[in-house]
């Protein structure tokens, strides 16, 4: 089971705090596609642009580490992992 937790604007858009997905050793991109189907709400376009890049200002963490430092959207997630997704507040 992989847990995806949503925060801030994305949580409010989806109206849900987290979902669990029965999957093992799949890419974060494939996981998010499954999540979108399971939620039955548009999700991917909030996180990823048409060039298969993470939209600037979007944080996708796997077990507390930003996937930007891993293999980005090709990073593999596995059973027991926790994915956290949110846009940070940039202003001061």
């Amino acid at each position: 089971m992989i847990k995806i937790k949503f925060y801030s604007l994305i949580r409010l858009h989806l109206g849900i705090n987290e979902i669990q997905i029965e999957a093992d050793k799949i890419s974060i991109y494939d996981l998010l596609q499954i999540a979108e189907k399971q939620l039955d709400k548009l999700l991917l376009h909030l996180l990823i642009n048409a060039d298969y890049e993470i939209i600037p200002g979007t944080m996708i963490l796997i077990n507390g580490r930003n996937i930007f430092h891993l293999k980005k959207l090709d990073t593999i997630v596995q059973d027991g992992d926790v994915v956290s997704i949110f846009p940070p507040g940039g202003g001061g």
Partner: protein
Amino acid sequence: MNMFQRNVQFWGKEKQQKLSESSVLVAGVGGLGCLVAEGLTRAGIGKLILIDNGKVEISNLNRQILFDQTDFGKSKVKIAQRRLKAINPELEIEIFQVDIAEMKVKDLPLYDGIADCLDNFAARFYLEKLLSKQQFLVHGGVQNDFGQVTTIIPDKTQSLKEIYPGTHIPVSVSVIPQIVMLIGSLMIQEIINNLFDKPLLINSMLILELEDFSMFKVELKK
């Protein structure tokens, strides 16, 4: 009796003394910076170093609590210095009206920690270069009606650059006063936690959302 009597009643003389011997660099004297600087002053901090290149504009007044209608066009750090000294004349303040990217550690007086009250990530990545291993940085960010706070300590946590890679958010973000005051207050608490050697947001980011009064902690792994 002195102005810190109610603080001492809560946390005791020893911690009040510790605060009076402590110094914090406040980077950015905008919404968060005004709140953090005033809160630390009222808590009894001994010394503040304020860095901001800006002048007061009318659009600042929804959230920048040290400024008013008489301050337009004036240096933010100079006005802030005057207001903070009026609250506590014994507070030591040094001001720098420059871009954070121009600052180097050798140009600055000593400080125990940094309050990251900046308004963009590029400047924040410069700021953390001013951090040494013995120091802490408390990061705050706000947008719309949500915001986040975390503590950065070299070798103990990820850096801001590691947490926020590739992040680009326009400088002029929408923001309402109440989230600035809440995130600023959480920053003050975590700065004081650090000064008392008990930080709570090491490898953990606190996210506050006003829309439904939610507060979450997101784990950040070193």
